[in-house]
C-alpha cells in the first residue's frame, strides 16, 4: 500500500489532488498550499477539508456569531464563556452547571434511529469533556407534515433512537419540543441538549500544554464511520482497490459511552488530565489540531498505533473517521500509568498515540514516515472566514402584508368551540406523551419536572433542594415572518418557560438551524436572527454560553423556515418551591398576566384553521418579559400561586386546556369586556402567563402585580369538569382529553 508523505509531497508539487471532491473551494486549496509552502499530503488535505467545512469552521457564520461575545451582558454567573466545548454557569452553593444544544439533522434524515442516537452521544461527550457529570438530556425536534408518509419513517426512528441511547445511558430526558411543518419534510431538525453538573474546582478546559505530556486516545476503536469524503481521497488518489464506498452513517454504542462517562470522571476526580476533548465531527483531525492549537502548538502523533476496527483503513480515513464513543486526553507522563489503569478498570481501550512537543507544528507519522506537518492553528482556528452576501428576501414584504387580521374569526359559540377542538387536536398542539413516554424521564431520581411542564427541572443537591430548570423553544413560523424578532421570541418563550416554574433564568445556549448561507436570503435571515438574539440576550442579562450552527438545511432549493432554537437555563434555590402547570385545586382563581392584543400573525390558530402564514409575528417586549419573570419567581418563592403556565403557540385556550387536563379540573372563563372572544382565546401576544391563585393569596398577589406595574386580569376560576367560556360554549374535559390525546398515537403508533 502506498501513501503520501510530506517528503513526497514536497517533491511532487503538480500531483492532482481531489480538493473539489472533498468540498474545498479552489481559493481554499490555494490557501492551504500557501500556508504549507507546498502541496498538502493526502492526510493534510483530509484534515483541512473536514476542519474547514462549514460544520467545523463556522466560516459563514463566524462574523455574525461574534456578537454573542461582543454584546454579552455582564454576568457574575458565567464561569466559562463561549468558545469552549460548552459554557459553564455558577448556580451557587459551589455548584456549576454546563449545558449545550447541538444539531444532528442530516444524519437523522438518512438513518433516523442511529442519527438521533449518536446525536445524544455527541452532546453527552461535550459535557463530560468539561468535567461535568451529565444529569439530563432534552430534544427539540422538527418534522415534516404529520400525515406525510415519510414522517412515519423518520419520527418513530428518531424517537426510538433518542430513547434507545438516552435510556441505556441512564439519563432522564426532561423536555424539548416536537413541531410539524411541511418545510421540514426533506430536512428534519433533530437537536439534542445535555446538561451536566460539577463542583467549581472541577472545571476543565481542552488544551495540550506541557512538553512531554502524552496524548491518549481512549474509547471505541476507530472504524470507517462517517467518512464519505475520505473514500474519495482514498479510492481516487491512492488505492483504487478499496472496498465499497464508506457509509456516512455512524452506529452508536451507549454502553461504551456509559463506560466513557465513568472512566473520564474518575480520571478528572484524581486530577490526572491536563486537557481533554471528545471526538465528534472530524474525529482525530479535530481533536489533535484543537488540543494542540489550544496549547502551545507542538504535538507529535503516531497514527499507526490507533486501534482499528477495520485494518484496511488508510491514514486519511483514520484522521477523518467519525467513529463514536472516543475521547482524547493529554496526561502528564508520571500519571499515564494511573490513567491507563482506570481505563482498564472500566474496560475502555486506551492507547498513547503521541506527545506534546516544544515546537509549534502538529506532526503526524504513519509507520515512521511523516504524513502531516502543519501549524495546528491554521487547521483548527484560523480557517477561512466569509462575509457572504446578504439580501432581504424579495418575497418578505408580500408575506408580511398578508395580514392574519383579515382571516375570518368565528362570531358564535359553536364556531369558537369547533375551532378550539381543532386547535387542541392538531398535531402541533396535541399531547406528545406517546413520544415522551418512550424516554426515561425519571431515572436517577432527581427529576422534579419533565414534559409536558413548561420546563424540565432537575434537583442537584438533595440536602438543600438546589435545582436547575431548562426549556428549549423556537418558532420557525415567527422567524420566517421576521428573523430578528423570531430569534428574540424564541428566547422570550424559553425564558418565560423557565420563570413559569419558579426558576431564575441565567444563561442561554442556541442551535441555529438555517438554510444555505450561499443564498443571500438565507444568509440575511441568519444574520438578522443572530443580531436579534444577541440584542435580546443583552437586554435580559442572559449570556449565550455556546451552541451550534447548522446550515444548508434545505431540500433542493426548498429552504426550511429559519429556525433558531434557544435553550435557557435557570436556577431555583429549592425545588420544593417550584410551580407546576396543573390546575389541581377547585375554586382557585385564574389570573391572566400581561396584555392581550390582536396578534394572530404566525399563530397556531392561523395555521390550523386557515393554513395561513403571513403578517407580523407578535410584538417583542423584553422589559415586560423580565417583569413577568420576576413576578412569577417571587410568587413561586412566597407561595402565592399554585400553578402557572406560559402562553405561547395556541394562545390562552391552549394553555388553559393543558393545565386543566393535567390537573383533572375544569375552568370557567369570562372574556374581558375589551376583547373579542377569538382574540382572547387564540392571540399569541407575548409576555403572558396564566396562574392559579388560592383565594387566601389573591389580595397579596394582585397587590404585588399592581405595585410592580404588571397587568393582571381575573379571567375565571378552576371549577367543574369542563372548560367553559361563559356565554359562548363549554367543552367537557373528557371530550378535550380524547381530542388532545388521540392525534399522535393515531398517526404514529
Amino acid at each position, binding site marked *: 500500500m502506498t501513501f503520501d508523505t510530506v517528503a513526497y509531497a514536497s517533491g511532487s508539487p503538480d500531483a492532482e489532488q481531489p480538493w473539489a471532491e472533498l468540498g474545498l473551494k479552489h481559493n481554499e486549496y490555494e490557501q492551504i498550499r500557501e500556508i504549507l509552502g507546498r502541496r498538502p499530503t493526502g492526510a493534510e488535505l483530509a484534515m483541512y477539508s473536514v476542519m474547514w467545512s462549514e460544520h467545523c469552521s463556522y466560516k459563514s457564520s463566524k462574523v455574525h456569531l461574534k456578537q454573542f461575545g461582543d454584546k454579552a451582558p455582564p454576568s457574575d454567573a458565567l464561569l466559562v464563556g463561549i468558545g469552549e466545548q460548552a459554557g459553564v454557569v455558577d448556580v451557587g452553593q459551589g455548584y456549576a452547571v454546563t449545558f449545550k444544544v447541538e444539531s444532528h439533522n442530516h444524519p437523522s434524515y438518512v438513518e433516523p434511529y442511529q442519527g438521533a442516537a449518536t446525536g445524544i452521544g455527541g452532546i453527552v461527550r461535550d459535557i463530560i469533556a468539561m468535567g461535568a457529570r451529565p444529569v439530563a438530556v432534552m430534544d427539540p425536534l422538527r418534522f415534516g407534515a404529520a400525515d406525510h408518509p415519510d414522517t412515519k419513517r423518520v419520527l418513530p426512528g428518531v424517537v426510538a433512537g433518542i430513547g434507545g441511547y438516552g435510556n441505556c445511558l441512564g439519563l432522564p430526558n426532561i423536555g424539548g419540543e416536537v413541531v410539524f411543518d411541511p418545510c421540514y419534510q426533506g430536512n428534519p431538525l433533530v437537536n439534542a441538549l445535555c446538561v451536566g453538573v460539577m463542583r467549581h474546582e472541577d472545571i476543565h478546559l481542552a488544551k495540550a500544554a506541557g512538553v512531554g505530556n502524552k496524548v491518549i486516545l481512549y474509547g*471505541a476503536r476507530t*472504524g470507517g464511520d462517517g467518512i464519505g469524503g475520505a473514500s474519495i481521497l482514498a479510492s481516487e488518489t491512492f488505492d483504487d482497490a478499496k472496498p465499497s464506498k464508506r*457509509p456516512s452513517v*455512524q*452506529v452508536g454504542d451507549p*454502553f461504551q459511552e456509559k463506560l466513557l462517562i465513568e472512566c473520564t470522571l474518575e480520571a478528572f476526580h484524581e486530577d490526572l488530565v491536563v486537557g481533554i476533548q471528545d471526538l465528534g465531527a472530524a474525529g482525530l483531525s479535530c481533536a489533535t489540531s484543537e488540543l494542540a492549537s489550544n496549547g502551545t502548538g507542538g504535538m507529535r502523533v503516531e497514527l499507526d498505533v490507533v486501534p482499528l*476496527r*477495520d485494518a484496511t483503513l488508510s491514514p486519511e480515513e483514520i484522521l477523518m473517521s467519525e*467513529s*463514536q464513543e472516543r475521547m482524547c486526553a493529554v496526561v502528564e507522563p508520571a500519571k499515564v500509568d494511573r490513567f491507563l489503569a482506570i481505563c482498564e478498570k472500566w474496560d475502555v481501550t486506551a492507547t498513547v498515540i503521541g506527545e506534546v512537543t516544544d515546537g509549534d507544528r502538529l506532526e503526524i507519522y504513519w509507520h515512521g514516515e511523516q504524513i502531516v506537518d502543519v501549524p495546528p492553528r491554521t487547521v483548527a482556528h484560523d480557517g477561512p472566514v466569509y462575509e457572504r452576501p446578504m439580501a432581504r428576501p424579495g418575497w418578505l414584504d408580500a408575506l408580511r402584508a398578508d395580514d392574519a387580521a383579515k382571516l375570518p374569526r368565528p362570531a358564535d359559540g359553536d364556531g369558537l368551540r369547533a375551532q378550539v377542538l381543532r386547535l387542541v387536536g392538531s398535531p402541533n398542539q396535541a399531547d406528545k406523551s406517546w413520544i415522551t413516554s418512550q424516554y426515561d424521564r425519571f431515572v436517577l431520581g432527581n427529576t422534579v419536572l419533565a414534559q409536558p411542564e413548561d420546563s424540565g427541572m432537575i434537583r442537584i443537591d438533595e440536602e438543600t433542594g438546589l435545582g436547575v430548570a431548562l426549556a428549549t423553544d423556537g418558532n420557525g413560523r415567527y422567524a420566517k415572518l421576521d428573523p430578528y424578532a423570531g430569534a428574540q421570541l424564541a428566547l422570550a418563550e424559553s425564558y418565560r418557560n423557565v420563570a413559569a416554574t419558579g426558576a431564575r433564568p441565567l444563561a442561554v445556549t442556541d442551535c441555529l438551524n438555517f438554510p444555505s448561507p450561499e443564498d443571500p436570503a438565507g444568509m440575511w435571515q441568519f444574520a438578522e436572527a443572530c443580531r436579534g438574539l444577541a440584542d435580546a440576550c443583552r437586554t435580559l442579562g442572559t449570556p449565550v454560553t455556546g451552541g451550534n450552527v447548522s446550515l444548508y438545511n434545505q431540500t433542493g432549493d426548498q429552504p426550511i423556515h429559519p429556525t433558531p432554537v434557544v435553550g435557557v437555563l435557570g436556577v431555583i434555590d429549592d425545588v420544593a418551591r417550584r410551580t407546576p402547570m396543573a390546575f389541581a385545586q377547585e375554586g382557585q382563581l385564574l389570573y391572566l398576566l400581561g396584555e392581550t392584543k390582536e396578534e394572530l400573525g404566525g399563530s397556531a390558530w392561523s395555521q390550523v384553521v386557515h393554513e395561513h402564514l403571513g403578517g407580523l409575528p407578535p410584538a417583542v417586549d423584553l422589559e415586560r418579559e423580565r417583569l413577568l419573570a420576576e413576578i412569577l419567581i417571587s410568587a413561586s418563592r412566597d407561595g402565592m400561586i399554585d400553578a402557572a403556565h406560559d402562553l405561547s403557540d395556541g394562545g390562552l385556550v391552549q394553555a388553559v386546556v393543558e393545565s386543566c387536563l393535567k390537573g383533572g379540573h375544569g375552568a370557567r372563563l369570562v372574556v374581558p369586556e375589551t376583547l373579542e372572544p377569538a382574540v382572547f382565546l387564540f392571540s399569541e401576544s407575548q409576555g403572558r402567563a396564566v396562574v392559579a391563585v388560592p383565594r387566601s393569596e389573591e389580595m397579596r398577589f394582585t397587590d404585588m402585580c399592581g405595585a410592580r406595574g404588571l397587568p393582571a386580569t381575573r379571567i375565571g376560576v378552576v371549577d367543574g369538569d369542563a372548560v367553559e367560556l361563559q356565554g359562548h360554549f363549554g367543552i367537557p374535559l373528557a371530550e378535550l382529553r380524547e381530542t388532545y390525546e388521540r392525534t399522535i398515537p393515531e398517526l404514529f403508533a
Partner: protein
Amino acid sequence: MARVVVDVMLKPEILDPQGQAVQRALPRLGFAGIADVRQGKRFELEVEGPVDDAALDQINTMAETFLANTVIEDFTVRVEEVAHRGEAK
C-alpha cells in the same frame, strides 16, 4: 417446498456493538483465538410454489425494503432445498 434464506449483516465498516460484546465475552468464558465477531440476522422464508425468477425478485425487493436496512446493512438471498419434514427416514 423450497426455502429461501435471507442473511442480513451490518455492512463491514459499520460498528457492531452486539458482535463486540460477544467477542469480549469469549476469552472470559475460556474460548481463545477468536479475532472478531460479527452478528447478523437470518430469515428463513418458506415459499409456496416454485422458486422462480419472479419469486426471487419479490424476495429481493422484500429484503431490500423491509428485512434489511440497506443504509447500514447488506443482505444475501439464496435458495435452500429442504428435506420434507415429517417423512420417515
